[in-house]
């Protein structure tokens, strides 16, 4: 038996579809009801930054109260459980078709248990599929890696914040934004001002510089998978992230657009090679309800969700 075949067998053991389905169901439940620790910490810090007794502080207090309640009762923290975005890393030789079936089945069950709101709507007939499965829904990104394990990253991205995402094509005459990082900074801040309270601030920005119109959006969302407290390995992008974060928080849009100091919790910027003719800057806005979790399946070990 050669190497690739044996890794295929290992992977299959790790990936009994029923086991994957159960683990993904639990991943969905945790993601919908409990925010990750880095986000909770950032929200607590944001509350401390608001003027005591202000509308901003009231909003942050109720936001934190909501999180305790959702976690305690095991109910979705936000009624818009959003688009379930799946990013799956898997070993060589695993059937992505069977993984998709397992994920879809987990979504059906999560919906039946009111862990998710039925959110898949046919745009032609207006009919809701009722199960969170439909054409192109959920979006699943599969990627093969060298590890023998499977990792599933899930992000639940609500409609309010999805609607305020934007793509800019530089140069932009009205914003006086040229084809450089200074131009990027201008258009990203413009996006924050346009979003105002509609995307549920204090939010997090995923930004992609370059790419084409579709890869730009995809990369901007992938940037949102980074923990809030990491540092961009590219020093120029790290500096840009810090500057945009600082400046956005001086716009006084504040929690939920009520005015105040916390407009953003974080900024994550990635870059993709571009055509000489195109210079896109793509922004995905994530609301304060930054729902993302990771599932790890290793061999026969119990699934880990973090």
């Amino acid at each position: 038996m050669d190497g690739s075949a044996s890794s295929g067998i290992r992977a299959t053991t790790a990936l009994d579809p029923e086991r994957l389905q159960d683990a993904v169901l639990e991943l969905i439940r945790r993601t919908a009801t409990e925010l990750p620790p880095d986000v909770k910490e950032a929200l607590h810090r944001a509350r401390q930054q608001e003027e005591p007794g202000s509308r901003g502080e009231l909003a942050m207090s109720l936001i934190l109260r909501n999180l305790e309640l959702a976690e305690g009762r095991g109910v979705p923290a936000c009624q818009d459980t959003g688009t379930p975005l799946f990013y799956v890393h898997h070993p060589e030789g695993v059937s992505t078709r069977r993984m998709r079936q397992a994920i879809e089945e987990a979504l059906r069950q999560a919906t039946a248990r009111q862990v998710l709101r039925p959110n898949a709507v046919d745009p032609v007939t207006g009919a809701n599929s009722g199960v969170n499965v439909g054409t192109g829904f959920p979006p699943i990104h599969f990627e093969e890696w060298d590890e023998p394990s499977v990792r599933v990253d899930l992000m639940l991205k609500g409609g309010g914040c999805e609607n305020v995402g934007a793509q800019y094509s530089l140069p932009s005459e009205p914003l006086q934004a040229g084809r450089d990082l200074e131009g990027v900074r201008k258009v990203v801040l413009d996006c924050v001002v346009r979003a105002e309270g509609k995307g549920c601030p204090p939010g997090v920005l995923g930004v992609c510089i370059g790419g084409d119109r579709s890869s730009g959006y995809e990369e901007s969302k992938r940037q949102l998978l980074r923990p809030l407290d990491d540092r961009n390995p590219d020093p120029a992008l790290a500096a840009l992230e810090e500057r945009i974060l600082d400046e956005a928080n001086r716009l006084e849009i504040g929690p939920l657009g009520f005015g105040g100091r916390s407009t953003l919790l974080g900024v994550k910027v990635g870059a993709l090679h571009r055509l000489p003719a195109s210079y896109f800057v793509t922004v995905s806005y994530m609301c304060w309800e930054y729902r993302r979790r990771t599932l790890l399946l290793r061999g026969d070990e119990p699934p880990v969700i973090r």
Partner: protein
Amino acid sequence: MIELRTPISLEAVRELRVGEMVSLSGLAVTARDAAHKYMVERLIERRQPLDEADARVHRELREVLRGGAVYHCGPIVRREGERWRFVSAGPTTSIREEVYQDRVIAHFGLRVVIGKGGMGPRTRRACQEHGCVYLHGLGGTGALTAEAVAEVLDVFKLEAFGPPEAFWKIRFEGFVGVVTMDAHGQSLHDQVAERAAQKLAALTGTS
């Protein structure tokens, strides 16, 4: 915190000012995209006579909404025996209803529109003209807001629109929000936007 209970009088609504916090109790109906389109195109404009089912929905809505509230919300609901319960039910983005909201306010005699993110000049004018306010809920706080829904009394158009888009007739006890558009033509959203635009111009050197 100002306490309001439906039906709300014109005088009470005219006393409210932008920035004030309100605790709202009483009857409301959830309505979002499909529901607003239906209210305006079918119930208000009536290009065709109403059939019996639509006439019933119209009667029910008139009864609740005169002096009452529309809530922009697509809840997660649970069936418990004969009754429904809201599991998670925070406000959804309101601006999508901007093209419909003024006619709904005028036709039904609404006193409160609840949602998030604010609305535009058409709604602002209708609030001023007819005596209505926009009450901004806490976006994303679905679990907390569901606690303020004391009772789910009825549902209309569930089959046609699905649970997130149906009209849910509910009774609030202590729904907390901030008045961000009042009956005097003021909008906190406009004030915040104006200040942010000035700051942006200074930060980017485009002023």
